[in-house]
């Protein structure tokens, strides 16, 4: 192509326009933030610049006459199992730029998805199932440290609880909205999550970008995050939420810190994060005051002191090789909740090479952590929350059966408000108005509509979970927690089943 490098000649998506249906209304041109569509006034036709297309399908969605189809470029290289399109294009881009390839969202490579190899039991004959429409079905979950034993005492002829319970978080559904920083996504999406969390009786996580002033009123439904960059962390912030989460790592990029490209740091972001406008916000890899487990314990208790021991402190780690040992250390360091983020977790920006090759699946880490804590007799001292590729209510249920108390959803929540996972979040040009701080684009998320969509999603999953629980003959979600016997593995190796702690289907 004239004046274009090779990396643009071999493009991924082809824009098919039906000339008989196109009315040249130019909505595609206006809505595409990647400048794919243009109007030729002289010829009165719409043209498409295919190399720029990222396959987000925004134009398809907006076209009033269904004139557009975004397709894969039919033009192919000679098929090669080793040299996939991905690897070929990575080399071509790097020979031009000499730089690290960036991407957004979670690992999209064909590793095994263990949720799809786990099957759920159902009751028949010997053990009757429950009708969730006729019987009460308890989805409520409490996150926090549970005491080793309960001591009761008699006072004035009544039994009272003597044991002091540490602060707990009450969730009406075992689902929370995951940590996505203010800056990676914009205020409209945060507001929608806050409104939805309040409506549903669950919580959302601020992520590492701080908490915008206008959202302090939703504090009781907020978990504030304290990450390695300490963006937006001050005393008021810590006390604003219902809990504090120390982010040690995230599944999409274990071992490295958060990354907000300078293009996305606008004035309101810079104010909330307390950094200069337009500067890249790179969180350091470790917290520079946490170099040992004792340092983590010190920070946990510093945060508890700062909030008068009224809020649970959570620690989020990426799922890596020795997650079980790390989790054991974290539990003993005084954390109330441990969050395990698997390698399918999303991100606004990460080097592709780290997202695709570092970390392990959430399912395996979860099973290993739950089993290790049980073996050590300290499982009750923490609640476990898992995240990283939870796609639907079945994944939620399997996660709970493997040992989780609750799940975080990130990518699923964004898809509820319009995301089509085009993986270009780092450009700041999100055409759905989600992962962008450009005010013209950010308007595309109407918090009223987005909050409704999030509420609908969690309610729908809640109903589905109740249906499955009914089929399992269980009437409270807590009876399923860690109940590996209600799962069976299919298409798994013996070793994998041993790690997950499940029997093979048929046994």
């Amino acid at each position, binding site marked *: 192509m004239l004046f274009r490098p090779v990396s643009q000649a071999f493009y991924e998506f082809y824009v098919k326009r039906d000339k008989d249906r196109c009315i040249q*209304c130019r909505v595609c041109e206006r809505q595409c933030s990647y400048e794919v569509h243009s109007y030729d006034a002289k010829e009165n036709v719409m043209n498409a610049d295919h190399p720029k297309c990222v396959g987000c399908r925004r134009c398809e969605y907006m076209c009033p006459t269904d004139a557009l189809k975004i397709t894969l470029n039919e033009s192919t290289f000679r098929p090669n199992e080793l040299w996939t399109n991905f690897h070929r294009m990575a080399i071509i881009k790097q020979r031009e730029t000499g730089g690290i390839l960036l991407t957004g969202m979670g690992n999209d490579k064909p590793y095994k998805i263990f949720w799809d190899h786990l099957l759920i039991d159902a009751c028949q004959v010997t053990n009757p199932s429950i009708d969730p429409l006729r019987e009460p079905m308890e989805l409520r979950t409490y996150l926090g440290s549970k005491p080793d034993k309960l001591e009761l005492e008699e006072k004035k002829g009544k039994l009272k609880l003597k044991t002091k319970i540490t602060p707990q978080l009450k969730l009406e559904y075992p689902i929370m909205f995951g940590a996505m920083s203010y800056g990676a996504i914009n205020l409209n999406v945060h507001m929608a999550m806050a409104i939805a969390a309040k409506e549903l009786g669950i919580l959302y996580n601020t992520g590492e970008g701080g908490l915008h002033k206008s959202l302090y009123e939703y504090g009781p439904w907020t978990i504030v995050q304290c990450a390695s960059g300490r963006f937006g962390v001050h005393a008021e912030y810590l006390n604003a939420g219902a809990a504090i989460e120390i982010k040690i790592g995230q599944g999409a990029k274990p071992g490295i810190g958060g990354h907000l490209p300078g293009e996305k740091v606008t004035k309101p972001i810079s104010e909330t994060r307390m950094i200069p406008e337009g500067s890249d916000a790179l969180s350091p890899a470790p917290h520079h005051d946490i170099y040992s487990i004792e340092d983590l314990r010190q920070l946990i208790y510093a945060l508890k002191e700062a909030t008068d021991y009224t809020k649970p402190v959570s620690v989020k780690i990426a799922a890596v090789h020795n997650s079980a040992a790390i989790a054991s250390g974290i539990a003993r360091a005084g954390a109330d909740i441990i969050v395990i983020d698997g390698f399918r977790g999303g991100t606004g920006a990460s080097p592709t090479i780290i997202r695709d090759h570092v970390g392990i699946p959430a399912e395996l880490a979860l099973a290993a952590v739950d089993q290790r804590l049980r073996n050590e007799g300290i499982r009750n001292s923490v609640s476990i929350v898992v995240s990283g590729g939870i796609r639907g209510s079945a994944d939620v249920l399997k996660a709970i059966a493997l040992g989780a108390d609750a799940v975080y959803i990130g990518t699923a929540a964004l898809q509820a408000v319009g995301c089509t996972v085009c993986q270009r979040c780092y450009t700041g040009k999100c055409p759905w108005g989600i992962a962008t701080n450009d005010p*013209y684009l950010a*308007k595309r998320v*109407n918090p*009223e509509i987005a909050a409704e969509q999030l509420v609908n999603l969690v309610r729908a999953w809640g109903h589905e979970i109740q249906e499955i629980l009914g089929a399992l003959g269980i009437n409270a979600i807590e009876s399923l927690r860690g109940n590996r016997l209600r799962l069976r593995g299919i298409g798994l190796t013996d070793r994998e089943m041993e790690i997950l702690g499940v029997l093979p289907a048929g046994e």
Partner: protein
Amino acid sequence: MSIKRVYPREEFCMGCRLCEVACITVHSESGDTIKAYKKEFPREPSRIWFEEKKPECFSFMCRHCDEPDCLEACISGAITKDPETSIVTIDEDICVGCWSCIMACPYGALKKKVRKDNKMVSTKCDLCIGRGINPACVQACPNRALVFK
């Protein structure tokens, strides 16, 4: 009697102009978007003025004033205000195309229109009377930037 009007909410308007596409479609002869744009000449105009100065933008149309200036200015009596519905309409058969109403409207809500029979008239939002449901622009807006209240 206070009537329901279409109000723009510029904080949610994303400048897609699908409101205009909907307006043209429902006021066209065929009622079909593709035919309205490609087969009908002259094309039915939208009754919406779209204002944009990025990042701000919004759709604007006739306010159906309680005391319409366009009605006062109309020399042929084509513009009337229905006593029951309070909707202000233009009878295109009576209209002589003097465009006094366009000049009189303090909001600039009226537009010039050339009919199929080459007659020049004025046109403006009629709140989609005859459609039976919400105005088309309100229904078509993908982001609830237009409300009917």
